[in-house]
């Protein structure tokens, strides 16, 4: 095997050769550079391979024929192998990326670049303190040289600041080294560790200086203005390396020297890390310059790594996995993002909309962002999971909270950015001119994230059960994205059906999972089938829809918490991309994803508490939470309620559902929301009845459910936008479900199941039909519609049947739900909440009337005179669902009786007993079949009678009336349904005043204001930055040694 010393020899040799014989070598220096970097990569790569296959052990390399302390020694172990490998790979890819730039700028730059990469290799490998200092200085000088390459005034300023700041820091380091030397008589790091300097009062100054210098090298908040400027002004190719490799090497160096200080100091490293992670991300929220934003994010990620290093006592042998998982994701993502930035050359993240001109780049951009946030299947996801779980077992809740808050703040700006790239207008932006040598490095980084993610999956407990087959299918769909809609649609439906067949035997004994499987996968088939009505290729739609469905079905199948969370995040990612497809969806998808991430983190923390209680990652751990159970249950409930859009967490829904594409609305409304319901059901079943730790929580949730219903229904009644009306109606319906579940009785759960099944069916119908009409008429506003009954009779019948179900009017299944509901409320004795629910039920009639009247009845508009029925591709699935409703209404016992039997073991409250078609409770009985027959007969008789009567009637044409004066100019002024409930609004409108929306707006404004205020410390003056560094040192000193 080639010794690691040759990494240094090759780089130095080539650099000297280029320096000395630059003229003679002209023409082949580019090739030499690439060859040299490739050789360095190969050397570290073969060591890495050897360590991975366990064929070598950690090796020391001695120089000059002596052993330390008389010589400098290098160490090559697993960690060094990984780090030198990623540094050299980034060097090789970075040089590929900057090939043209290098060719233009001459030999010196290539020389410096080689020295730059080499110096980082040495800082990683060396075990000699002074040697470390020397190569850190070489790294700084080389980097400052590379910054000059940009040849702009800003780059000069940034480089100057960087030189001064690192000069001061290395001065401190020198002092620390000489003090440590005077106490230990050695410069060898391992000997210094053995001397336990940190425990002796006198030598702790040496420890302090060394530690603070290496921490400052990592650009901790707030003493990092000089570092940010380098990210901002340097060539993006250099920025990529600063972020990916300098940060990686720096973190490893800190890890290497921390033992010199000893464990008492670790806590402070975490503290600074936390400050940096939260502070840097917070200020990123106000940043619009891409490279500077990436700088904030880089520093934030390094802060997270510092937290991890500082907590290594708690993390134990998981430290390496966690730290490398975060580090690698950061490394690949940041390098890729900087390289993309170099291609776009934009000064504002809004101009990243140009990415849509190249779908591959857009795909990679999304990959990098999701990897940074820690979505599956990237390594950061598993690292974060292990981090939270391990910290939970140690009871470190505050650290968990800090980490999750920091991650969330990072999400604020990363998803704003993604939204801009996906939605903003790019017609004015210049088209991209991408050469292959710029594209390859970005691809390598992007793909390695996926590969590494899959590679590390089995290393996590229960990770090997995670099913990657659906993701493979999605990948294939990505590859086939160029095909027309009908082929991809058929393939997608085929995939879903195949999965359903494959899944069914596995959930054969589990009715609850079967019901949700039908809702998720059956719903998938139905809503996808409606997609045949679309033309063209619908780029990106199918992979994302399938991603959401894969996540949904994964939640059902999950047997462990990690599997559940993995699927939950996939579902969130998929649904985000679906929602943002709508024309005006950018802000709504943004608020959806922020609520979703916050909810996911609440779930993660809840899972952490469950894991901490049991040391078991199986889903059953939720049933036995002994460690802060009330907190755990509340966190989980809140997490799931972000998906059911319960009151307070609902503000994302109306926009997200209302503005989504016509067939996406039913997917995210009728189907996606049920994920939250499933989560809540799972949680409540694990909580069990009479759990003393959850009584209050359930009571509160009951109220939340009732109020959600009221507010949802009232808001729906005041809408003029048909789809938003339906969206608010969904909020209300999910409120019923939550209320029924929170009752925690047999009857309440029966009601909730009935509502869940009903809502799935009627909301699919309504969103499909209304969505189809909206597309056809080109407007969302109900007051611009009217008289559609004659043009779209089949749509009318579908909507009519649906609203009968929502209204809970016999004979359809909505009545079953209501009947069970009132039984449950009376049994439980929650009369106040019951009254609210009852009141809300009446309000529902208002919006239902408004919906059907405004759209289908009333006067036909002039411009709609030639309208025809909506596509049969939409009506087909709709009528399948109507048949479903009819069967469920006429024979409820076939569904509800098994559900009742399933629920029996969980509840000891009064049950619904069945006799044939009759359902009995204490309060009475109900017979779906008989009601259906009676009402059906009456309906048919009445209809026949009406038809026979109307035979003699004279048909009146629309304009066969006296029409005064002119045509109304503004439709809303004459439409009877416009603002139809003005009176009610005056009386009760305060209840639906956007108080909650205002609350969240205020919160977000406050966060942004704080960020805007804080970042003023970055005044641009190096003298201020120097002051920051010195104040940082003094404060750190006062806290650590001064005992502040």
């Amino acid at each position, binding site marked *: 095997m080639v010794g690691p010393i040759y990494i240094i020899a090759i780089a130095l040799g080539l650099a000297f050769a280029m320096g000395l014989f630059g003229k003679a070598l002209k023409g082949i220096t580019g090739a030499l550079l690439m060859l040299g970097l490739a050789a360095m990569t190969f050397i570290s790569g073969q060591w890495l391979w050897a360590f991975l296959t366990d064929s070598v052990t950690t090796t020391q390399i001695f120089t000059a024929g002596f052993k330390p302390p008389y010589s400098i020694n290098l160490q090559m172990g697993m960690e060094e192998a990984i780090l030198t490998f990623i540094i050299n790979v980034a060097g090789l890819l970075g040089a590929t990326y900057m090939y043209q730039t290098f060719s233009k700028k001459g030999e010196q730059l290539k020389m410096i670049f080689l020295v730059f990469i080499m110096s980082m290799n040495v800082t990683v490998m060396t075990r000699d303190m002074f040697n470390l200092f020397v190569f850190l200085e070489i790294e700084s000088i080389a980097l400052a040289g590379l910054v000059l390459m940009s040849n702009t005034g800003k780059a000069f300023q940034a480089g*100057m600041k960087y030189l001064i700041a690192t000069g001061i820091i290395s001065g401190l380091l020198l002092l620390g080294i000489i003090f440590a030397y005077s106490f230990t008589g050695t410069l060898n790091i391992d000997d210094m560790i053995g001397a336990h300097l940190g425990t002796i009062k006198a030598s702790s100054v040496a420890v302090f200086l060394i530690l603070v210098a290496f921490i400052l090298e990592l650009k901790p908040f707030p003493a990092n203005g000089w570092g940010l400027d380098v990210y901002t002004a340097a060539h993006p190719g250099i920025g990529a390396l600063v972020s990916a490799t300098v940060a990686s090497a720096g973190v490893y160096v800190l890890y290497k020297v921390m033992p010199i200080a000893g464990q008492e100091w670790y806590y402070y490293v975490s503290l600074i890390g936390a400050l940096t992670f939260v502070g840097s991300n917070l200020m990123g929220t106000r940043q619009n310059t891409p490279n500077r934003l990436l700088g904030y994010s880089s520093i934030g990620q390094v802060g997270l790594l510092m937290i991890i290093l500082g907590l290594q006592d708690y993390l134990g042998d998981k430290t390496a996995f966690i730290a490398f998982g975060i580090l690698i994701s950061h490394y690949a993502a940041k390098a890729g993002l900087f390289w993309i930035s170099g291609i776009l050359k934009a000064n504002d993240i809004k101009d990243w909309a140009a990415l849509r001109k190249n779908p591959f780049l857009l795909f990679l951009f999304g990959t990098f962002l999701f990897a940074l946030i820690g979505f599956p299947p990237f390594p950061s996801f598993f690292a974060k999971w292990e981090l939270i779980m391990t910290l939970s077992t140690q009871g470190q809740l505050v650290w968990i909270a800090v980490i999750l808050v920091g991650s969330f703040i990072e999400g604020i700006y990363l998803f704003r950015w993604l939204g801009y790239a996906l939605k903003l207008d790019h017609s004015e932006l210049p088209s991209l001119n991408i050469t292959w040598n710029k594209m390859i490095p970005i691809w390598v980084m992007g793909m390695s994230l996926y590969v590494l993610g899959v590679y590390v999956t089995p290393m996590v407990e229960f990770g090997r059960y995670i099913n990657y087959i659906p993701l493979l299918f999605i990948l294939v769909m990505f590859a086939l994205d160029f095909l027309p809609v009908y082929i991809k649609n058929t393939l997608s439906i085929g995939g879903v059906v195949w999965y359903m067949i494959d899944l069914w035997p596995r959930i054969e004994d589990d009715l609850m999972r079967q019901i949700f499987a039908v809702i998720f996968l059956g719903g998938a088939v139905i809503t996808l089938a409606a997609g045949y009505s679309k033309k063209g290729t619908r780029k990106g739609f199918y992979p994302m829809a399938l991603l959401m469905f894969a996540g949904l079905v994964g939640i059902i199948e999950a047997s462990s918490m990690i599997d559940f969370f993995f699927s939950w995040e996939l579902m969130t990612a998929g649904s985000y991309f679906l929602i943002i497809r709508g024309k005006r969806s950018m802000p709504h998808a943004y608020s959806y994803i922020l609520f979703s991430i916050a909810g996911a983190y609440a779930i993660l923390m809840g899972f952490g508490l469950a894991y901490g209680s049991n040391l078991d990652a199986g889903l059953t751990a939720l049933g036995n939470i002994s460690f802060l159970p009330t907190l755990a249950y509340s966190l989980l409930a809140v997490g799931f309620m972000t998906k059911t859009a319960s009151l307070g967490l609902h503000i994302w829904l109306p926009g997200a559902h209302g503005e989504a594409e016509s067939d996406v609305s039913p997917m995210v409304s009728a189907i996606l929301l049920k994920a939250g319901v499933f989560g809540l059901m799972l949680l409540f079943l694990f909580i069990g009845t009479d759990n003393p730790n959850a009584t209050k929580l359930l009571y509160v949730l009951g109220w939340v459910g009732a109020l959600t219903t009221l507010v949802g229904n009232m808001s729906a009644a005041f809408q003029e936008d048909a789809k938003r009306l339906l969206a608010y109606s969904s909020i209300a319906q999910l409120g019923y479900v939550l209320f029924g579940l929170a009752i925690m009785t047999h009857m309440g759960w029966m009601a909730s199941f009935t509502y869940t099944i009903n809502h799935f069916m009627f909301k699919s119908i309504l969103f499909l039909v209304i969505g189809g009409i909206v597309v056809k008429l080109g407007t969302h506003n109900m007051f611009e519609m009217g008289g559609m009954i004659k043009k779209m009779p089949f749509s009318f019948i579908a909507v009519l049947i649906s609203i009968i179900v929502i209204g809970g009017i016999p004979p359809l299944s909505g009545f079953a739900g209501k009947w069970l509901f009132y039984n449950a409320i009376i049994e439980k004795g929650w009369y106040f909440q019951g009254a609210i629910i009852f009141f809300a039920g009446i309000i529902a009639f208002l919006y239902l009337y408004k919906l059907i009247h405004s759209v289908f009845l009333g006067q036909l508009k002039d411009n709609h005179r030639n309208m025809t029925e909506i596509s049969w591709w939409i009506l087909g699935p709709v009528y399948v669902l109507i048949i479903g409703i009819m069967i469920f209404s006429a024979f409820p016992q076939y569904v509800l009786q098994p559900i009742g039997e399933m629920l029996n073991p969980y509840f000891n409250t009064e049950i619904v007993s069945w006799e044939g078609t009759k359902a009995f409770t204490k309060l009475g009985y109900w017979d779906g079949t008989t009601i259906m027959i009676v009402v059906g007969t009456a309906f048919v008789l009445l209809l026949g009678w009406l038809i026979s009567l109307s035979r003699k009637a004279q048909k009146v044409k629309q304009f066969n009336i006296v029409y005064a004066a002119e045509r109304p100019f503004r439709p809303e002024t004459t439409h009877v349904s416009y603002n139809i409930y003005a009176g009610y609004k005056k009386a009760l409108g305060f209840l639906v005043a956007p108080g909650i929306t205002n609350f969240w707006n205020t919160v977000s404004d406050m966060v942004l204001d704080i960020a805007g205020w804080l970042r*003023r410390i970055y005044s641009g*003056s190096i003298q201020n930055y120097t002051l920051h560094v010195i104040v940082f040192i003094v404060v750190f000193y006062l806290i650590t040694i001064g005992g502040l």
Partner: protein
Amino acid sequence: MEYIIISIGFALVLLGLYGIMYMRNLMRIIIAFTLFNTGINIVMVSIGYIRNASAPILDAIPAAGTTPNIVDPVPQALVLTAIVIGLGVTALMLTYVVKLHQDKKSLDINNFKDLKW
């Protein structure tokens, strides 16, 4: 004696930091930076100093079993390296000053605040 020297070293360090933070002219800042470096070098040398010992230059191989009465050579070696590195950094800083001056025709540090927030 050694206390005086180490004190001078620290005084130079502080003076250098003061200069870096309060001077307006870039050249003066660089001079302050070199003062800072010199101060650190003096501190390093004085830490390796042993009273009444001579410079670590051996004329002959010391006899077995005896220890020559010299000061610790390691800090001196380190200082030599540090001086060389300091030279490199200073040279690069001066290069930057030339570039900055070409850009704005000014040496006033207050004119170079284009990157902020």
